[in-house]
């Protein structure tokens, strides 16, 4: 039973943010997808593939008592590192240094929810430092993919204090309308990717040069794009 003061049946939203077409940017969405596939959760827990919807997510965020966000974050950590941020630290961190790759978008979503007076009472951000972003049409890199299970475990541990009991799912009956369409399923997405010879994957070198961990591209001495 919950030892928190928000009642026995809080509205819990688990939100995956990011664009699954951009390599490790897809971490958040893939994490909620995996969570739905592997775990039975009580009906007061909703899973949502938020994509890059920004302002359109305000409505879902403001109706949540407890919000858990999975996202790729730029925290200046070694690629593949998992980062846990809780409660008031989330907007403060976001303001001080760009943390979420959807900072403008999601920080605004939180601010707008606060302005409407309906900020989630409990907020947990589970982020992973990406290895590779600039790979349009690409999938998660192995180091990031390996963080999905620990990230879900972290979320479940956090949710236990609100009385959430998750049971491993053995069947394949998982159905949730708020997750990506099956044609975007991770395996199909990876298997169907066009070869680089027929579909160029190169991006803008000004951006490539400024990404952390990129050494194969010429690096500007100033280190930043402006």
């Amino acid at each position, binding site marked *: 039973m919950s030892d928190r003061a928000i009642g026995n049946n809080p509205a819990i939203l688990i939100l995956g943010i990011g*664009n*699954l*077409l951009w390599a490790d*940017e897809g971490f958040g969405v893939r994490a909620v997808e995996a969570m739905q596939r592997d775990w039975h959760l009580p009906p007061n827990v909703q899973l949502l*593939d*938020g*994509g*890059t*919807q*920004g*302002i*359109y*997510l*305000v*409505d879902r965020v403001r109706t949540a008592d407890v919000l858990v966000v999975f996202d790729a974050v*730029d925290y200046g950590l070694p690629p593949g590192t998992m980062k846990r941020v809780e409660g008031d630290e989330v907007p403060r961190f976001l303001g001080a*240094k*760009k943390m979420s*790759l959807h900072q*403008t*978008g999601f*920080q*605004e979503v*939180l*601010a*707008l929810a*606060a*302005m*409407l*007076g309906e900020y989630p009472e409990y907020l947990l951000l589970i982020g992973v430092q990406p290895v590779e*972003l*600039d790979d*349009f*049409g690409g999938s998660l890199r192995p180091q990031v993919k390996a963080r999905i299970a620990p990230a879900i475990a972290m979320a479940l541990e956090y949710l236990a204090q609100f009385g959430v009991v998750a049971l491993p799912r053995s069947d394949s009956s998982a159905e949730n*309308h708020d997750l*990506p*369409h099956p*044609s*975007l399923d991770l395996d199909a997405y990876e298997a*169907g*990717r*066009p070869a680089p010879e*027929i*579909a*160029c994957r*190169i*991006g*803008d*070198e*000004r*951006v490539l040069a*400024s990404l*952390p961990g990129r050494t194969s591209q*010429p*690096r*500007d001495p*100033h280190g*930043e*794009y*402006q």
Partner: protein
Amino acid sequence: MSVVTANGFELDTAGRRLVVDPVTRIEGHLRCEVNLDENNVIRNAVSTGTMWRGLEVILRGRDPRDAWAFTERICGVCTGTHALTSVRAVEDALGIAIPENANSIRNIMQLTLQAHDHLVHFYHLHALDWVDVVSALGADPKATSALAQSISDWPKSSPGYFRDVQNRLKRFVESGQLGPFMNGYWGSPAYKLPPEANLMAVTHYLEALDFQKEIVKIHTVYGGKNPHPNWLVGGMPCAINVDGTGAVGAINMERLNLVSSIIDQTIEFIDKVYIPDLIAIASFYKDWTYGGGLSSQAVMSYGDIPDHANDLSSENLLLPRGAIINGNLNEIHEIDLRNPEEIQEFVDHSWFSYKDETRGLHPWDGVTDPNFVLGPNAVGTRTRIEALDEQAKYSWIKAPRWRGHAMEVGPLARYVIGYAQGNPEFKEPVDKLLTDLGLPLEAIFSTLGRTAARGLEASWAAHKMRYFQDKLVANIKAGDTATANVDNWDPKTWPKEARGVGTTEAPRGALGHWIVIKDGKIDNYQAVVPTTWNGSPRDPAGNIGAFEASLLNTPLAKADEPLEILRTLHSFDPCLACATHIMGPDGEELTRVKVR
């Protein structure tokens, strides 16, 4: 040194250069450089998309029936409209006809997106270019109430209501969480509204935010979920069973009634809040007549919202189709999406290579071969550009042209064409708006005209939602519950090779997907998105694009606070996520204005 472009605009690059990067408020992907004369008037404008993405990169070799799900992920805002365009392209290629109910449902979803997107654009992306939030904090709630009641009978208009909102806003600002109001040019002399009008608009900013929770339910009913609703080649993936009950399963009367009541609320909110606010705000900016650009000369719309299924003739499309060129509103040209001589993309000023860059390529023959080179007059380095050289390649956006003409697309283009056709659904609201404001017809060709057309179109869309909802219910009651045609679902029934084109009029303008299918798989896929039209760079003939043209001759109140540039570019509702995308390492570094 002054030159006149092929499409008749005078450019002078002598003055100092101002760089704004990025321009969009939510997602920054657009950079703009202008030259200012000694009076801070814009005499040259350069717009550039700062990163390239191509759909063919993700779609080649995949199943055409899945393309919609991928295209829905390109953009964070206009998901459904890409999906609809994609299924239409595949249906066109394979000769698939859809049921009448699917046509009505698709129209309702597209119109819902139109109304919702316009509403969010006006209040949450564009209003703050005209409305000073800080001034709202000092408004008299009584005066605000009097103003609100004088323009609308919307019930939330008491002095106490505005006082409550103002107090909430004060607490919010005092807590240091400026949030969405960060980076504003508050207090700029370019803001003209009195404090009470500012408070009214900011209050409605919050109401619009609250209202969107209702409108998205329509996508949940018909698309199964929101965000990212489901679509289907051959129709819509929702089954209809009017006798069913409960919240799970097929669409029943309960859900149809829910949609119906949300449509009523949408009409009411737009007609009683959005439109009166638009007129009230515009009345203080009547002398701000800038930003017309191409709108009085060259506009284009593919047309959309087919009344009956499977008929794309102009007569059957409720949003007008056609092209106007050389400022001749008396002649509306028909558009042929398949003619290789009509829609072409040029790259001589874009960071791509063609074998012959003096010529354009039709999207079915489209080539996306990146080539990032800076011109000899660019300042800075390849990774740290201080100033672009617009005589050379300078953008990741290609330059689409219709028969060689740079075109403006979007709500204003649609309204200009509808007006020129004499269609009363478009002409009458424009005439009424101009009469209410005491302005001549020429006033519509401006930044404010673009913003006004978007508002009028939101109202048009909301009323058309009602039309198609009634049509859908009547058809169902008459016994037709078909929503999908799956006769050609099996790739074995497809020809060995097929080409198709699908279009929509997306909220921000003409959107087209061109597909080539070979042996059951996607062989080529090219999207020409609205912001590619409006944000295009120069072409081999020297025509400038719609963004560039719209900025010319605009005076800036303060050169280091280019509010006027944002105003005009925001009036197009640019969505560079489709055309391009940038992933900078630090948002703060990316948001800057630089005067050189």
